[in-house]
């Protein structure tokens, strides 16, 4: 298994954000997790990416349980959140160069140029991030997340607040990720975009997966109805 979670639990004091989630994803699979705000989707993604420590349970990458205090496996994971992880006073190229150094990439200049080209920002290399439009910033953080060519890609609400051009770039780049070698997890409440990139789908409510299925034999209209019924019943 490329990415595996076993009985994952995360508590904040007396609040249980993730309450026993199991998942197994092979290379080439893309899981989209839908759920309303407060379902614990971001917490799940945080634990899968090693940003948060699980209260109980384990996450394994390539069959090896990850230890958030060890850094070696972090090269294999790329994280894109709706927050960009960018420094406003660094230029586009400097932002990427910083990450290239953190990930210890060989030939960082070439990687930065390649990353900028991939999201169409080559001519903005020397612009400070604060002067970029919102869509450009999102494209830049996409380039940042994929700079080290990770085999596991975690996306937290990637389409939130995107302008159409950025959404098109994102769709393109995510399409490139479907090369059979990568594992993708997306959490979102955007049904249309979420379904488009998924091979598997789950609905998360109150920290648990209440529904799971394959995406290819899914009727989008029926799923949409099912999803809304599920979250209404819960509310």
């Amino acid at each position, binding site marked *: 298994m490329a990415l595996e979670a076993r009985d994952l639990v995360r508590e904040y*004091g*007396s609040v*249980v954000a993730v309450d026993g989630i199991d998942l197994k994803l092979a290379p080439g699979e893309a899981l989209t997790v839908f759920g309303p705000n407060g379902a614990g989707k971001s917490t799940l993604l945080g634990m899968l990416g090693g940003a948060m420590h699980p209260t109980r349970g384990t996450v394994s990458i390539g069959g090896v349980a990850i230890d958030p205090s060890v850094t070696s496996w972090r090269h294999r994971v790329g994280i894109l959140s709706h927050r960009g992880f960018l420094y406003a006073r660094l230029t586009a190229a400097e932002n990427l160069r910083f990450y290239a150094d953190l990930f210890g990439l060989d030939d960082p200049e070439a990687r930065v140029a390649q990353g900028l080209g991939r999201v169409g920002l080559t001519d903005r290399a020397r612009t400070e991030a604060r002067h970029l439009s919102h869509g450009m910033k999102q494209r830049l953080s996409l380039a940042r997340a994929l700079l080290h060519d990770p085999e596991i890609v975690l996306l937290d609400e990637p389409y939130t607040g995107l302008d159409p051009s950025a959404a098109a770039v994102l769709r393109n780049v995510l399409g490139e990720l479907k090369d059979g070698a990568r594992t993708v997890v997306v959490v979102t409440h955007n049904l249309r975009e979420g379904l488009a990139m998924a091979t598997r789908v789950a609905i998360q409510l109150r920290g648990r997966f209440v529904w799971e299925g394959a995406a290819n034999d899914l009727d989008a209209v029926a799923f949409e109805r099912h999803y809304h019924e599920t979250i209404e019943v819960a509310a």
Partner: protein
Amino acid sequence: MSTAGVRRGGTALTLIGLAGLIGLFWLSFFWVSTEVNQGVAQRIFYVHVPAAWTSFMAIGISALCSGVYLWLRDERLDRAALAAAEGGFVFATIVLVTGPLWGKIAWGTYWTWEPRLTLTLLLWFIFLGYFMVRGSTEDPEKGKRFAAVVALVGAIDIPFIHVSVLWFRSLHPQPVVAKAEGPTLPQDMLTTLLVGVLVFTVLFFGLFLMRYALEGLRAELQLRERRTSS
């Protein structure tokens, strides 16, 4: 040991400690001879010094438990660190109250930068910081880790503070404190002091165990509440 067992042990030790405290008071008021230079006021020494000893032992225990907690993440270690810190805070407060009372009568001023008194004052603030970080975090796990860091750094810093207050005093002449200690201490004073140290240590561990058991019960209650609500 079960929580109930710890609680019973804590209660027993506390009762022994309280009984010992009555004995200590009897010794220091009626039995021990009066110190020649300072007179009756010096008798506060038999409370002051054992309380200071206990508060420094407490930061040691708290830091030790904190360090192992960060390593093993066993909740019981955090509870022990907290219980020790609370005990230490109380005993440091006793030192800070008895010190000036003694000082006023012995050398005419409430506060002097006497090294051990200064050290206790800073220790008191380290404990205060310990409780403040615990109280001001939304995620209790984070509060436990923060507090553990405060206790550990505080304990590492104390030898440095000790050296610095001694050095500071060597430069700045202070009112001479007739320290009744060391080999020159008459036998009956030494006996009373040692009884004091023993009594305060027993009392500390009694309170420590009771407080530890209380935290255990609180955690158990939380767990049950969560089970019934889900």
